[in-house]
């Protein structure tokens, strides 16, 4: 099949690839660019494990064709830590024991980041709504909700 050139930034770095027409962004991120932080769970948009942020919006990378990302800014969990220091959301997920098997965690963190980028001081209901497209089998969600609220508080304290 003919390949299609596509250029976008991944966590701020310029990327240029020839991809198969119809290849999903998830496949290109994991298999071409070596960023395995987005996970392939259901491959049909039901579980949220593959969530990434594209131009500031939360997207399912398993349902996004890579060729539609021309010129876009793509963010994944792999780009969150800066100079070896964890992002406040990552820190909060660790401190609140918000992961067990960890498979949903990258998607949860991106869903939470998309929320906090727009709504820095969310209510509990905001958090529940924001992660409602992400399935977790282990935690019972409560520790995840707590972690997102904790990260929001940490952010607002740093900003103050």
């Amino acid at each position, binding site marked *: 099949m003919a390949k299609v050139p596509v250029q976008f930034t991944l966590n701020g770095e310029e990327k240029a690839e020839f991809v198969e027409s119809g290849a999903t962004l998830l496949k290109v991120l994991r298999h071409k660019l070596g960023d395995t932080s987005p996970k392939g769970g*259901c491959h*049909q948009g*039901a*579980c949220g494990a593959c969530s990434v942020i594209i131009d500031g919006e939360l997207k399912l990378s398993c349902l996004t064709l890579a060729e539609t990302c021309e010129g876009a800014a793509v963010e994944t969990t792999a780009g969150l830590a800066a100079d070896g220091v964890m992002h406040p959301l990552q820190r909060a997920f660790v401190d609140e*024991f918000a*992961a*067990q*098997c*960890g498979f949903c965690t990258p998607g949860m963190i991106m869903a939470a980041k998309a929320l906090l980028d727009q709504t820095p001081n969310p209510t509990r209901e905001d*958090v*529940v*709504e924001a*992660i*409602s497209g992400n*399935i977790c*089998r*282990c*935690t*019972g*969600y*409560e*520790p*995840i*909700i707590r972690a997102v609220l904790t990260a929001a508080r940490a952010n607002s304290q740093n900003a103050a």
Partner: protein
Amino acid sequence: MAIWRGTGVAAVNYPTGMNLGGDPSQALVHSTPTGNFMVTLSSVDLGQGLKQVMAQICAETIGVPTEQVIIDTADTDTGPHCMGTFASRGTHRIGNAVIQAAKEARQVMLEVAAEALEVDAADLDTDGTGNIHVKGAPQKAISIFDTALTAHFKLGRSISGRGMFLVPRSFPETETGAMKPSTCYAHACTVAEVDVDDETGEVTVISVKNVFEIGRALNPRMVEQQLVGGSWMGISHALYETTEPYYPNREHGGTDFNEYLMPGPGDLAETEIIVLERPAADGPYGAKGPGEMCANPQIPAVANAIFDAVGVRVDTLPITPERILRALKEQRAGAV
């Protein structure tokens, strides 16, 4: 037509491990040349934290910081024998094997340090931060780093140990049927509060209050995490999860996880967890197995709460709105 509130209670007495052909696990411990300790297992960490707890158990037994222990659970072909991570057996069975292996390794480590310090091994102790010293004379000391170098490069010894824990199979007595299928039991009790809508059959879990007795909680935060997640999963088993969502015909069954219902973050009940610690005599540092039990008592508690609310006994899981409505219909027919 109305919404009815009901309360239900259930308790569980949960065996740690299993009783088929005997329940063994083995572990091997050896030091690296620089005094870290490698624990080789063929057990698997499913995400519940087995590696962390095994590192704690090994570190506590040898007398080193947890960071100095590496857990390798790589391969069931090459690792020492383990029956596996199931039946709430991991912490108890594998932990006991790790203790035995770590004790043997500690003994060799102290013998090597005794050679280096020219003292008797029985007079030595560890300080828990990476050093070995003469009891009562902390200035007479050697680091575990140097002890390992001495073993590897001067004495030609392997600081290592073998661990084996076996709960033998228990057979029932012919006359009485009496047997001992498990050596220790964990316990739990749940009180569930539900609202049942007798028009739609819908159940809303208002709260679940859980008490778990799990022996010693070796890592209290991870125990809490497992219990909170398990409590949610118990509600999920009670009301949501089935591979046959389009009952009654099996050929109309779900085809993937999109059709496998679970409660989402918007469906959470108020959840309370209380942990009681009554150390098990034969547990590693007193631990029992909380694993599967954490998702069990919620199920009968919810079923009992539904009975308390609307007076119907549903004994098939999950307790779907359809099953409740059918039971209510039967109840009304019986009343006439």
